[in-house]
């Protein structure tokens, strides 16, 4: 049978503009139940910067996820409503839309749509409840029309808020770091950055290569390009635990209920990492130098510490090189474009980011 209609979708595709550059990385997987639209993204952006979602209208998503810090906040653990300290460090959101495995340090949210439900009701974050937040949105002059444009009717509920926030966060795309530009042949590394790149990717392993014999820093096993995470859970040796029950924060283990997962956290993406200090799930390291010292030491013992975390024997120059390479993951254009937009939005929302 001739199924002529099977070509219809292709005909539509033929009308879409070809993208200018070849793909640097696999496309974002847009969920079927929440396709991104211009109106949805605009609404999501507005919600992200609007403290209206918090109990006393003082805290917005952007209070902790600050565009000028690649959507991290510069504090060891996040500070929410009334300055209440949380328990974990705020991760940056660079390229978060590309993560199709669960989110958070411990993977307890399946996707961006589900994640957005968490902060509103968390006491040390936005400190309220969804019914209250939805009521505040419904009472505002502007949101009804924005929801109608984004979703076809002015009804407001937590799921629509989550969908819009997810759509906005899928636009937080960075592909213009020096690392990307070097890959595209538009820039070259300094000697120090090149050495750091070689350490990060274990070039020393290649007996015929230019870096033969160089120590291997093993970073890319977990911080795998293009987003510098393989989205899996590892113990990178932060806390000593002779017994797996003794980790101060069980991390992944609290989600799976399996003691062998205690002390494991999701390998974080490292794009824009130079802007997201302090580091680790509890913000224990103030600088990238401290992070590299940690890995160079091989970390602390637990039987589930990754086999790829071991003493690296890097000298001072090699350590500096790793730090220099991590700085090449900074995408200034990303930060500038999102923080300029946010200034406008924050003024529009009539409140300042804390």
């Amino acid at each position, binding site marked *: 049978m*001739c*199924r*002529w209609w*099977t*070509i219809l979708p*292709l*005909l539509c595709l*033929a009308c879409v503009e*070809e993208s200018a550059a070849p*793909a*640097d*990385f*696999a*496309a*974002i*997987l847009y969920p079927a139940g929440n396709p991104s639209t211009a109106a949805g993204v605009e609404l999501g952006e507005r919600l992200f910067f609007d403290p209206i979602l918090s109990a006393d209208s003082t805290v917005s998503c952007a209070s902790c996820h600050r565009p000028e810090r690649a959507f991290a906040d510069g504090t060891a653990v996040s500070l929410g409503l009334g300055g209440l300290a949380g328990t974990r460090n705020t991760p940056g959101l660079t390229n978060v839309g*590309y993560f*199709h495995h669960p989110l958070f340090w411990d993977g307890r949210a399946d996707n961006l749509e589900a994640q957005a439900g968490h902060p509103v009701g968390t006491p040390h974050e936005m400190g309220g409840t969804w019914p209250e937040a939805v009521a505040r949105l419904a009472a505002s002059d502007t949101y009804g029309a924005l929801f109608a444009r984004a979703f076809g009717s002015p009804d407001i509920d937590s799921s629509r808020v989550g969908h819009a926030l997810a759509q906005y966060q899928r636009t937080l795309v960075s592909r213009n770091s020096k690392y990307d530009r070097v890959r595209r042949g538009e820039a070259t590394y300094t000697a120090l950055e090149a050495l750091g790149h070689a350490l990060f*990717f*274990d*070039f020393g*392993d*290649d*007996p*015929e*290569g230019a870096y033969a014999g160089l120590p*291997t820093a*093993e970073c*890319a*096993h977990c911080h*795998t390009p*293009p987003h510098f*995470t*393989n*989205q*899996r859970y590892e113990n990178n040796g932060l806390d000593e635990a*002779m017994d797996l029950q003794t980790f101060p924060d069980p991390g992944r283990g609290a989600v*799976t209920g*399996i003691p*062998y*997962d205690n002390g494991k956290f999701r390998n974080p993406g490292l794009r824009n990492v130079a802007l997201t200090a302090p580091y680790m799930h509890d913000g224990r390291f103030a600088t990238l130098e401290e992070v590299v010292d940690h890995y160079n030491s091989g970390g602390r*013992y637990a*039987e*589930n*510490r*990754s*086999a*790829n*975390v*071991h003493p690296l024997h890097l000298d001072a120059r090699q350590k500096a090189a790793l730090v220099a390479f991590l700085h090449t993951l900074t995408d200034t254009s990303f930060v500038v474009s999102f923080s300029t937009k946010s200034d406008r939005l924050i003024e529009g929302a009539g409140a300042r980011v804390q």
Partner: protein
Amino acid sequence: MKYLLPLLVLLPLLGCLDDDDQLDPLRDVQFTLNYRATYGGDPLGIQRETYGYPTGDSLKVLLFQYYVSDLELLPADGDDAVRLAEIDLIRWMSAAEDATQQRTYLVPPGDYRGLRFGLGVKPSLNARDPSEFAANYVLNEAEFWGPSTRYVFAKIEANAMLEDDGRFDTGLSYHMGSDALYRTVSLEQPFTVGGNETPTLTLTADVLRALSGNGQTFDITSPDKQTVHGGNQEVATGIWNRLAGQFTLSVE
């Protein structure tokens, strides 16, 4: 854009070709292949179990995985092989996982004499970058090591206790793969699909036999043999060859 027009002219024609010579959902039968991992014959328990090693040491396995390309059933009458999967990644990485993982396929009923697959990522796919595929495709599982080293075909990671101090503090990490290492594994084991009862096939891979077997034991106590990655494939070749040679197929 300029190539699109001829393509659009061609497409309706292609659409009219008979598409499903190969698979017929009405005729085909559901067929289950179990991938089983063991250590010295015992079901593999990631992190949970402590295993002995021929050097007298003990270890806990943290990760075991391998890519399979062109998984095919071999018809008894010598007909063309039936392709079950072009590429798959078989992985044990969490204490939550069962030693046996199941995959189901639709296959034509008939008599078969066995099964064949390529261990690793076949050269035609190994030449392609992950960015060419969807983000959730098996070649986008973050196993791509770099433009020249390409995909890692198989990994074994473990923590070993080399002194008798209760500390599994020596990391062992073996990452293998290159076009030169790609191997075809054929396993003969007659079975019939369809009829009264379609059997379940179990393909077993044993981590210990990959590390130690055929009179060779990989020396995990030697510091330069504890981490084998990337370009340093020579040290890993022995593990790779033993891994490729130890698969067994059983029919139940």
